[in-house]
């Protein structure tokens, strides 16, 4: 009798797929769709999310023969998802399809107000996340694909250098250097916004 898909381990499902059972990949898809979807939605714009998640799962399928059954499958899949997002941005920057939104005085004022607040609770009183999201999107759009990914993982998600390095497949030294440079660039961009607010 065939075992229930829920009771099968990742390694067992991978073995089935490698033995030629293509449909067994649906178990992987069901098990990990939420995890991969979360990663992809955070890193790429919503309109590109569906295409990127498809790409991530197809890449995972094609890479299954290289998966060493001893490792953590979830981590392995997350790494593929992150690298697919990175490739999305590399392609977008190469073809100059990165949307560059413009900031207004409103953003500068919002930032100025937020920075001058003493307590964290006051942030909620300042209203929506819209300004934060728009400033962030504007600043990230001005960074390279590498700086963008490392900033998202380390600065925005709070991952350690080691974790980010594993997900991106880079060395720890590379992540450290990139992270530092990306933060410096972000700082410079935020200062521009602040200066604009003062001038206005």
């Amino acid at each position, binding site marked *: 009798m065939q075992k229930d898909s829920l009771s099968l381990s990742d390694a067992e499902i991978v073995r089935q797929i490698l033995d030629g059972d293509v*449909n067994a990949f649906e178990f992987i898809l069901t098990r990990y769709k939420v995890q991969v979807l979360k990663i992809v939605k955070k890193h790429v714009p919503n309109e590109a999310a569906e295409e990127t998640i498809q790409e991530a799962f*197809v890449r995972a399928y094609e890479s299954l023969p290289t998966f060493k059954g001893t490792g953590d499958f979830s981590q392995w899949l997350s790494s593929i998802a992150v690298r697919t997002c990175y490739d999305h941005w590399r392609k977008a920057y190469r073809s100059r399809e990165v949307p560059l939104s413009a900031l207004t005085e409103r953003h500068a004022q919002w930032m100025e107000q937020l*920075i001058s607040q003493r307590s964290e609770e006051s*942030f909620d009183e300042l209203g929506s996340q819209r300004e934060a999201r728009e400033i*962030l999107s504007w600043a990230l759009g001005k960074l390279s694909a590498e700086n963008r990914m490392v900033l998202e993982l380390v600065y925005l998600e709070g991952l350690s250098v080691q974790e980010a390095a594993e997900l991106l497949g880079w060395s720890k030294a590379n992540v450290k250097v990139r992270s530092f440079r990306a933060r410096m660039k972000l700082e410079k961009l935020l200062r521009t916004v602040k200066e604009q607010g003062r001038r206005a």
Partner: protein
Amino acid sequence: MMRSRISENESLKKAFRDAYAAKESEKTGDGWQSAVMKRIRRIGPLTPASNFLPAFEHFVWRLAPVSCLLVLVLTLLFVNMELDVDSDYLGTMAAEMERPTLVELFGLEG
């Protein structure tokens, strides 16, 4: 005095992190799942990864110390040969060039 970093301001950092995390809850369609399976069925069953490259890599690494040793020995041998490279080379060149050049240019035979 050192300026404080805007990007390290706790309130702003929290605002950015919250805005970034909120992207997770954006809605996407469901069609992608069937599209993934369609693409995968089109690719078909996978062939197991070839073991050639890892085996070759292992072989290369095993040979690396031997290669280094060989390079070192050859370098030492070359240094100890005490060849007068400049004079030998120029002498050979002069002898080689003289005859054919005169014959070709002036038709002179010794």
